[in-house]
């Protein structure tokens, strides 16, 4: 089966000089949840931006490689075209429309949808997923808490009835039980509505629990990939990403070693 998304050896350069991605390839099969893991600055966000064509606003560009959606080259489509094709990105750092209320934010998310019934149903669905948003629906987004904004951003993306969602750090800033809920929602959408997810996450634990397949990035390259269950049992991953290397989980208080970061590639 051809993957829904096929990223083939892309290079990304910011500002004409800063080379950030150095040949990244990954595949996302239809109906899968794929996790993209890696430390700060590894290039996860950049990869997602490249897929959703949001690089331009950051003065970045894809200089090599190709990106295919269901076999179609998409590097030259606008982000709006991509949303039309069902690809929606939830941007890192929330990016709610500050002056719009939460509800207006959500409704704008349905810009590409024309059926009134569908929009209303989607809205109800989002409110059901995030009851907190319903309470705050009349507030301007700028005046809601960080976590509320994060929910709003995720909810907004769902309003577009997407078939492929690029989630950039969805768990960031969310309270533990909400994190869990978000992942449950992901799973729910995935199993019930066959929505495919590409998930950039720092919360490796959660990500590997819910994802079927994972890629690990380091300084702009994919350094390891495999089914999530395999990754979760890999010793290195366990030690550096899950914190359970060499037996049981270490207390944050005990970790004192300096510069232990493992590099798969120089």
């Amino acid at each position, binding site marked *: 089966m051809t993957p829904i998304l096929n990223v083939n050896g892309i290079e990304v350069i910011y500002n004409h*000089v800063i080379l950030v991605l150095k040949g990244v390839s990954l595949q996302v099969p239809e109906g899968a949840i794929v996790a993209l893991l890696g430390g700060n600055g590894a290039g996860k966000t950049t990869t997602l931006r490249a897929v959703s064509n949001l690089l331009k606003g950051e003065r970045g560009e894809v200089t090599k490689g190709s990106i295919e959606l269901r076999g179609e080259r998409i590097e030259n489509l606008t982000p709006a075209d991509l949303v039309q094709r069902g690809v929606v990105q939830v941007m890192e750092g929330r990016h709610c429309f500050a002056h719009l209320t939460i509800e207006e934010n959500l409704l704008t998310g349905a810009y590409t949808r024309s059926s009134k019934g569908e929009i209303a149903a989607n809205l109800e669905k989002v409110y059901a997923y995030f009851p907190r948003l319903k309470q705050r629906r009349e507030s301007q987004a700028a005046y809601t808490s960080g976590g509320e904004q994060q929910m709003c951003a995720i909810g907004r993306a769902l309003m577009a009835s997407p078939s492929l969602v690029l989630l950039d750090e969805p768990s960031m800033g969310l309270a533990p039980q909400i994190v869990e809920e978000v992942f449950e929602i992901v799973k729910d959408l995935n199993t019930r509505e066959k929505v495919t997810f590409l998930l950039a996450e720092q919360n490796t634990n959660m990500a590997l629990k819910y994802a079927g397949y994972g890629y690990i990035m380091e300084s702009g390259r994919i350094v390891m990939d495999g089914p999530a269950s395999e990754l979760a049992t890999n010793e290195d991953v366990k030690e550096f990403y899950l914190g359970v290397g060499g037996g049981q989980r270490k207390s944050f208080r005990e970790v004192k070693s300096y510069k232990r970061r493992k590099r798969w590639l120089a």
Partner: protein
Amino acid sequence: MLYRENGQFKTSYRADQQIFPILQDRWGMLALLLFAYLAVPALASPYMFPAVLIPFLIMALAALGVNILVGYCGQISLGSGAFMAVGAYGAYNFFVRVPDMPLIPAILLGGVCAMAFGILFGLPSLRVKGLYLAVATLAAQFFADWMFLRIKWFTNDSPSGSVSVNNLQVFGFPLDSDAAKYWFCLSFLVVTALLAKNLVRSAIGREWMAIRDMDVAAAVIGIRPMYAKLTAFAVSSFIVGMAGALWAFIYLGAWEPAAFSVEQSFRLLFMVIIGGLGSITGGFFGAAFIVVLPIFLANYLPAAASLVGMSIGTAGIEHAQLMIFGALIVWFLVVEPHGLARLWATGKQKLRLWPFPH
């Protein structure tokens, strides 16, 4: 591989804090200064001095001032023309009313007048922000236009409102040759640029930038928005005021308020944005661009047009100039929204990586 800091290790923070940490840059700067002081006067034609070089120097000075306010402190100002006017008329009044007033103190005092005016019109910035402030600064512009037209005292009761100065001297040397005027303006510019550079890389400069980038956070780390904004207005309008005085005294000789119209304010804003907000070098690029381009076009457009077999009148040239000018501005912004200075920096960075592309 020539342009590299390879092997140039900084052994102290002082060395690292230099204005030009890279050796090649230091030599380049020295060469540039020598060139500006010695070679340019020898090479320039009599037309170049008054028409290109002197306006360039003065405008670069003004752009420097505007950049402190707009580029470093983030307070967009459309009233720079007014600060120039206050500087010019302030200096003029000191110059003609105080017996035997020497030129340099008169210009500095003009700057002080502009500074006071700048602080006054900077006060709203404590409450009004962004584009609202930008538009509100036009109040300063139109007020100054009016003030110097209407209040006779400022123009020494000249019936037409136009004033002039002559017999300029510095330490007994008459400023009558073009080269002398050039050196005079150049020295003003070099000294001010150095001081301004020091300011922006010191604590106060960081305060300005902090206010520009995120004022609430700046307040939380103990920066007083009022102090930061008003000092930016003060320093900026002082420099712009001096530039205004030079523009009036050295370049125009005789002037009326229209010489510092809102058009001038826009041009100054252009310079800093085209040159690069928050960059001292940017002001120079911007000033060069804005001063030289129209003159260049006026001089060479007809020739260029006749090459392709067209003849255009002065009106056509003027319109073509407007169009080219507008198009170039847009083009530069599209290529590099952060201005010529950033383009320059990117160029240098590429040079450092050379011969590798990244």
